[in-house]
């Protein structure tokens, strides 16, 4: 069973969101997602300053097996991207909830966060897929 930290928020499409509380949030893919994808070989990240609505394709992670779109969990502007992933996409496999973060968003407003899943609701999504 994949690890699902309690303090994070989640989407049905397997992104995680760490709300910093200062109007920004860090986004990555879950451990379950990296495990299903297999070894990542490329990560295509947005540019700082790009603006997205919730549900827009923001990034692409590509594994040996398949390419997968990453969606904006909430509306916002890209404040920072994890440039280290350019040369080390395997960080996502090794530490999906930590060093494998993808990008940080400046949130349009915090209300969008209430649409996200908590850890137990996301756990149910994962279990649904596994059965």
């Amino acid at each position: 069973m994949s690890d699902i930290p309690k303090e994070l928020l989640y989407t049905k499409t397997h992104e995680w969101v760490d709300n910093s509380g200062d109007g920004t949030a860090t986004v990555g893919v879950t451990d379950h997602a990296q495990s299903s994808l297999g070894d990542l070989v490329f990560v295509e990240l947005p540019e700082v300053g790009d603006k997205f609505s919730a549900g827009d394709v923001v990034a692409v992670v590509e594994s040996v097996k398949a390419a997968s779109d990453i969606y904006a969990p909430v509306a916002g502007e890209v404040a920072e991207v994890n440039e280290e992933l350019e040369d080390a996409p395997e960080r996502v496999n090794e530490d999906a909830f930590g060093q494998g973060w993808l990008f940080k968003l400046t949130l349009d407003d915090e209300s969008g966060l209430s649409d996200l899943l908590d850890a137990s609701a996301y756990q149910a999504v994962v279990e649904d897929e596994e059965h």
Partner: protein
Amino acid sequence: MAQRTPLYAEHVALDAKLVDFAGWDMPIDYGSQITEHKAVRDNAGMFDVSHMAVVDIHGAQARAFLRRLLANDIAKADEIGKAIYTCLLNTRGGVIDDLIVYHLADDHYRAVINAATTEKDLAWLTSQARDYDVTVEHRTDLATIAVQGPRARELAGQILDPKLAEQALKIKPFRAVVDGDISVGRTGYTGEDGFEIVLPGEDAPQFWRDLHAAGVAPVGLGARDTLRLEAGLNLYGQDMDEDCTPLESGLGWTVAFKPTDRDFIGRESLEHLREQGVAQKLVGLVLEGRGVMRTGAVVRAGGSQDDDPANAEGAVTSGSFAPTLGRSIALARVPSDWGDSVEINIRNKWQPARVVGYPFVRNGESRIDP
């Protein structure tokens, strides 16, 4: 329920990710496909390939039967211990399967065929064997373990029975030695040196565990696919099938047109095709930029202005990321008159790729210019 090899419990114990492959529960990886791929390139890895069928052909007319049946000429393996790689063709020259045939003893040959094609191959062999004094026997009692990599022979040699090991370590590539129900061939599907070892299913788990203890890494079918693609080896069902001939699949070198009086199945069709000219060819591709060429992606000639993917005349038959090269490579079927520059449709964008000779990697070294 899917079939299981004698090594199924070993895969479960090693926490493998299991998938259905041609009706078999097989390990796709044991955690990391890239780590497994590199273990084979740098050291030694082992694969459970017991889903592939071992078929023994015995009888006074076994040689005559195989000279009729196979596109390559088994007469090249008249010396006991030699093996050939060959296609099995239908009368139209289409590829029913590709296989390795070992000459193990007088009147005894052993074919190793693909899992997905086992039933149709056996039906074809049995029907073609009617006119010959031969028996065709599917050896479901045997398991096959491939040990591949620069240290594969040395490490496998420590596990095999000492007398068999001594013989096995002396054989040249594409040869085999046999001792009762154990055969050891210096063959493989990775572009590295190594052995393919056929042994009784009941002995396979202990042999597997001993190899693991000796430092041989378990490797899943995921890495097997990237290893064989880097080595430029065709995969049946992707790079060739019954709708195309060896001449359109980069396998013309495996068809023995000489001697001219050997009447193998499919010969007439292939000769006709050769005279007419072969319209398509299989080429190696290296993607110039980032991204991954995937199997099924369409290919157009370099400089083409036709952006509609439906009009593209070429297609990737096998594409992936090549861990040894750190970039994407592919085999693609394209019109014979195309040059060295093509474009491939990746996620609705046309990306430049270069046509290169393959293998892309041999014995751990890149053969592609940067």
